[in-house]
């Protein structure tokens, strides 16, 4: 059949091949006639035809269960995308992947210079450098996840408009990239801890559940921000300020526990400071890694908070993101 079509084409071509002056082709759009109405079929017919053959409406949002299934089916894409982003990051640099470890170390050095030496925030905190560096690394994980989550959809419109995949794959993938980044930082952290005489203990194992809970929390918040950022890209301009404020109240470079002990703040403020999810994950990580950071320095019910925040953000964020699935990348 193919061949006959082509043959016909070849036969009829010479008649149509009159040489065309270029100018004529250019002003064609100006001399358009009103096109004749298309051969329209009755609407009922087409809908009925679609129903008879079991066709589905294009671009409709899948059910929540189906969505989870699709997302799970794309798990290899999610991890491959995260790893690819991570390795692409420093591919132009001469030192290459060394920057994965060097960047967090430099970050910690800057904070130590400002808060440890210049401002002297370290008073009353034992093992201040491990305390500070742990705080900075754990906080950076949350901060970068949320920041890249905000741009997950709005910064990848090309991808969203070209391929079909559950869009939640993007914010999750970015959160995963930050988790991988954090694992590099943790390797650097272990070296710092050992240098400052922190003794490895059984409690180091607790770092894993803390990381898992924090990852779920970050991914959840990323999904919320991704939906908001997709609708209003301006939010990405606002986020650095919100995140910086959040960092300063989260006890990254000061101890919430010892500050609260010496001040008479209202009870509400105390509860708010202690239940702040970032502070919860930071303190739990310090508790896990630093032997001089004792259990009594942790707020009450801290594991319940950690789990609660993870579930709330993770499940809530996922459902919130899914609700707008069909709108991403449009308009």
């Amino acid at each position, binding site marked *: 059949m193919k061949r006959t079509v082509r043959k016909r084409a070849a036969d009829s071509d010479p008649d149509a091949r009159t040489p065309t002056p270029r100018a004529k082709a250019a002003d064609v759009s100006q001399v358009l006639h009103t096109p004749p109405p298309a051969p329209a079929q009755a609407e009922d017919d087409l809908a009925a*035809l679609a129903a008879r053959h079991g066709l589905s409406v294009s671009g409709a949002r899948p059910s929540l269960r189906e969505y989870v299934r699709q997302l799970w089916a794309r798990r290899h894409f999610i991890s491959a*995308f995260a790893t690819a982003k991570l*390795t692409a990051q420093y591919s132009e640099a001469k030192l290459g992947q060394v920057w994965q470890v060097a960047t967090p170390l430099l970050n910690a050095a800057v904070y130590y210079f400002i808060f440890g030496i210049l401002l002297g925030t370290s008073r009353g905190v034992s093992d201040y450098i491990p305390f500070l560096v742990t705080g900075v690394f754990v906080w950076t994980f949350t901060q970068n996840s949320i920041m890249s989550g905000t741009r997950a959809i709005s910064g990848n419109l090309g991808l969203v408009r070209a391929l079909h995949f559950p869009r939640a794959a993007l914010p999750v993938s970015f959160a995963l990239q930050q988790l991988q980044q954090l694992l590099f930082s943790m390797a650097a952290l272990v070296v710092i801890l050992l240098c400052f005489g922190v003794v490895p203990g059984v409690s180091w194992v607790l770092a894993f559940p803390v990381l898992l809970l924090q990852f779920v929390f970050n991914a959840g918040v990323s999904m919320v921000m991704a939906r908001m950022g997709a609708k209003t890209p301006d939010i990405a301009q606002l986020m650095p300020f919100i995140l910086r404020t959040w960092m300063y109240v989260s006890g990254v470079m000061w101890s919430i526990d010892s500050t609260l002990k010496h001040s008479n703040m209202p009870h509400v403020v105390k509860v708010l400071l202690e239940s702040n999810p970032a502070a919860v994950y930071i303190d739990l990580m310090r508790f896990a890694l630093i032997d001089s950071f004792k259990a009594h320095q942790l707020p009450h019910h801290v594991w319940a908070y950690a789990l609660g925040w993870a579930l709330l953000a993770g499940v809530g964020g996922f459902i919130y993101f899914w609700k707008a699935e069909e709108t991403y990348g449009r308009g």
Partner: protein
Amino acid sequence: MAERNTEAIPTVIADNVDIVYRVNGTGSGKGSATAALNRILRREKAEKAAGVRRVHAVKKVSFVAYKGEAIGLIGTNGSGKSTLLKAVAGLLPVEHGKIYTNGQPSLLGVNAALMNDLTGERNVWLGGLAMGMSREQVRERYQGIVDFSGINDKGDFITLPMRTYSSGMAARLRFSIAAAKDHDVLLIDEALATGDRAFQKRSEERIRELRERAGTVFLVSHNNKSIRDTCERVLWLERGVLRMDGPTEEVLEAYEAFTGGADKPAKKA
């Protein structure tokens, strides 16, 4: 291929489809900042006053595509071809009407998922996974993709970052990755113009294969020759309106008369 015996199976049904773009920030007058504020505060009410323009890109288009068909979409620039294709893929919302599809139509193209800083090898993996192939599938087809792209014909280029490729090489690799998957309904937007003549021949061959295995192929192109070579049915869109729908030769003749003559004969290289 030609067993359209009893009742043909429809794969894509467009039922009276209208597509409207809304464009922000075309503020007719002064002060786009105030216009932006206005837009936020008053939302739906005063779309026009706040500088939102509506572009009616596709108007009341209906058609039925059947399994085994290859359909060309033609029309002058800005006539709504690509827009219609995106809507069929489910990537753009329709204003009125409905588009029904059998399975998931996919646009041919993985450009957006690929990263220039990664090696060709990593990009084959990434692109394959992005299109929804499983790891086993990618592993199976990896060699085929690389061979088809011809990237390694001139040495071991697949292990170099993609930013080092010439534009032709990169385009060939992209097409090879995109064409490696079997699609229910395949939508191609002017993809055949990539690479040298030898590669174009191979791509056309591949499109034919995909179509035999998959179902329906839509091809948007300004190259009437490649439409003639691959399609037996053509939809002609003009200013968003479906102007003609019929056998390739019939529609192309009318179209060529309309645009002022046929393409110049392709150069025999």
